């Protein structure tokens, strides 16, 4: 779909999140000079086209006690990576799963999984289970636990000039 200028204005207005009121789309509409029904129609179209992937909350997992956050990587033969990725992604403990371009020789890994857990032991047990269940034994592999988090925010794709809508403008900045 072509994302119009009007859509982009709306996306800009939504970047800081929905205003926390009973009818948030009416408040957004006022800010961008659209009716509530136009806002809803455009957002639904953006969602149906995959521009908006999901509408909901973003949980700050660290604050909720998910202190162990691991990026698990495997160097998988090219012809196997897609089928393995699809299977590994079905495990409920895996929260993100990607194939990425490797950077050999320093970084030969092409299959990435994110696993969050309350502690490292839990996360490593998940790893062992993934290896056993999907036949990943013998493939070059690393687990990178995260240490300090320096920056966490939703990626912003448009200039922030229209962000300041409603009272939520004070929140949500990591």
């Amino acid at each position, binding site marked *: 779909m072509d994302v119009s200028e009007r859509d982009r204005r709306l996306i800009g207005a939504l970047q800081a999140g929905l205003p926390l009121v009973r009818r948030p789309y009416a408040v957004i509409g006022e800010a961008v000079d659209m009716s509530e029904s136009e806002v809803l129609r455009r957002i639904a179209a953006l969602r149906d086209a995959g521009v908006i992937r999901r509408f909901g909350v973003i949980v700050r*997992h660290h604050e909720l006690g998910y202190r162990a956050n691991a990026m698990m990587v495997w160097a998988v033969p090219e012809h196997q990576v897609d089928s393995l990725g699809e299977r590994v992604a079905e495990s409920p403990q895996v929260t993100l799963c990607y194939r990425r371009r490797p950077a050999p020789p320093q970084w030969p890994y092409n299959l990435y999984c994110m696993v969050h857990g309350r502690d490292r032991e839990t996360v490593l047990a998940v790893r062992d289970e993934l290896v056993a269940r999907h036949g990943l034994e013998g493939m070059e592999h690393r687990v990178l636990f995260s240490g300090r*988090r320096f*920056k966490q925010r939703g990626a912003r794709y*448009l200039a922030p000039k229209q962000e300041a809508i409603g009272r939520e403008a004070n929140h949500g900045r990591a």
Partner: protein
Amino acid sequence: MDALDRDLVNRLQDGIPVAERPFRPAARELAVTEEEVVARVERLVAEGVLSRFGPMYNAERLGGEVTLAAMAVPEERFEAVSELVNAYPEVAHNYARSHALNMWFVVATEGPGRIKEVLTDIRERTGLAVYDMPREQEFYIGLRFNL
């Protein structure tokens, strides 16, 4: 956080409808008023449990680009280099990780071509190699935490 907060966070992670009153279904399911849902979400955001309530975009469909980049930063320079990297508005998040490649950050840009500029700029300013590991396939998305 009480039991209702937990139920609410779990419920909202499943998403909300694009509708005039998006909080109504969750309110009904949890047998509270919409005002109660809104007030609790507002408090959870203020407390830092929730970082944002709203849409997650597919950057590529907006004409932008996203990548994951990594650097091997000497310990004594780590603080300074992380400040330099984080100062780019295109850097979405940045984690220290346990590996020789010890700094991992996501770069998301509005338009094409800018990723390369940012990574080149970081390399030139720090004198350190910057590894670019763009996504080739996404198998699953939906970060969800059961509370």
